[in-house]
């Protein structure tokens, strides 16, 4: 299976670009959401009215935007971000909390999006790699440090590392190299570029402090 999990996805025909396919999925998601809204009473009828029962149609705060989305009860945040909201910068590596590629911030705290139920982030602020740059396109200091230092080889793990670093620097803005290594130790790089990644992220810490 390809790293982004697209191989074998229904409707992916030779000659269709991955980007178009993703757009199609997003459109389909929007359709599903709309029909759920129209038949809202039916959706509500599925619940038995007990305390704690959940609605499928929810509003998420993603990258500062309110996103209305139809979410399965058994759906993970990584699935919602990638396949409902089109935010494919969040990668799915292991889908088992063991690689860190799907790391996003939930209320500023790094979490594995593959192992968070989307319903559990209602009312919380979700930030993915797409939400880091300023509205005018200015990169976040951590992103800029990665670009400048070229710390990654294949960079599949990069969005997760960047989000883990951004989150860790919020709790410790001036880490030693060892502290930073421990702080972002929940992310794997199969190219084993750890030294270069840490070089970049130490520069990123300086940039983030405005040093």
């Amino acid at each position, binding site marked *: *299976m390809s790293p982004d*999990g697209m191989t074998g996805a229904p409707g992916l025909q030779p000659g269709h670009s991955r980007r178009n396919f993703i757009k199609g999925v997003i459109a389909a998601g929007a359709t599903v959401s709309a029909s759920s809204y129209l038949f809202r009473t039916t959706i509500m009828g599925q619940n038995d009215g*007990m*305390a*704690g*029962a*959940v609605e499928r149609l929810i509003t998420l705060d993603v990258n500062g935007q309110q996103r209305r989305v139809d979410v*399965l*009860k*058994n*759906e*993970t945040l990584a*699935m919602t971000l990638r396949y409902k909201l089109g935010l494919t910068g969040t990668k*799915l590596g*292991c*889908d*088992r*909390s*063991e690689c*860190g590629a799907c*790391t996003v911030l939930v209320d500023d*705290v*790094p*979490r*594995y999006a*593959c*192992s*968070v*139920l989307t*319903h*559990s982030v209602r009312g919380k602020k979700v930030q993915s790699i797409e939400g880091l740059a300023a509205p005018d396109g200015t990169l976040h200091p951590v992103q800029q440090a990665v670009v400048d230092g070229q710390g990654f080889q294949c960079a599949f793990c990069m969005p997760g590392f960047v989000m*883990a670093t951004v989150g*860790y620097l919020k709790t410790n803005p001036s880490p030693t190299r*060892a502290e930073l*290594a*421990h*702080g*972002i*130790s*929940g992310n794997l790089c199969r190219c084993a570029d750890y030294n270069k990644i840490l070089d970049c992220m130490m520069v990123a810490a300086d940039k983030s402090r405005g040093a």
Partner: protein
Amino acid sequence: MPPIRDVMPAFELFQPASVGDALGVLDRHGADAWVMAGGMDTFDWLKDRIKRPKVVVDLGMVEELRGIKDAAGGLEIGAMTTLTTVAHNPLVKERFPLLAEAALIVASPQIRNQGTVGGNVSQDARCWYYRAGWPCYRAGGNICYADTPTAINREHAIFNADRCVAVNPSDTAPALIALDAEFVIKRGSAERVVPAREFFVGPGIDITRLTVLQPGDLLTAIRIPATWAGKAHYFEKVRDRQVWDFALVNIAASLNMSGTTISDARMVVNGVAAEPYRLDAVEAAIKGKPRDKATADLAADLAVQGAVPLQHNAYKIPLVKALVKRAIRGEAEWATS
């Protein structure tokens, strides 16, 4: 097992906002309900289709289960308090650094940010035959796949095996036992308080679960008395790699010193039996003795009496001995953590 990439099988989801509502849902759904704290143990079971609960009760919205508060010089820790919070809480670090150290080396930063102390003590066994869905004793069958001549059992039990040879994988569990903690369990309108040691059960009592929690039970809080606040302590975890890994063996010790001699002690190792293994004989033998080499040697020999290694885990015997010696002498050889 290769990862399955599509979504987990469907379940009914409840996200109660209070303990009362959670208990109501659990009462109504009985054995069909799966209690989910941080979910770090849960999602593997569900994604691999090994366990397929009809109802998942996510406790993430129950704010009253989070937080750490003073309790007469001790602490009461809500079951949904994350391991990160426990590891960095000033009160925990000041009074019970043993627990802070244990919480800080669980798994990875993201897992500690989401995983809870209640979930860490309630998590299921890691035996891969069991987790891969083999119909073993622990899964309700009548064979152990890990205790056969060709099995891979490097991580399994050396003490008190009874048909099943799986071990308890928790890092905070031995620390909490060494602090004489108590676990508060609610069920319906009833509440019971269980000493940490009695919270965990071996296969002789119930081969299908690692704790006393039955369907309908909810672990709500962990109480640590003031008894061991500020006393000497030792925690060490030995694992193959320094992130993510469960302990091959870990040790938690509390030592009350009277001058240069040990007046009282608690010493617990985990990763060696189905329940955290408390070293009663060691605790009794080291009372009144100094923290020196003679005491350490005596304790190490006592600690492994009765150990029965499997094909591939005899290394755990010298490992337990070494950890007991270091706990008594206080010679920390910290791995990066």
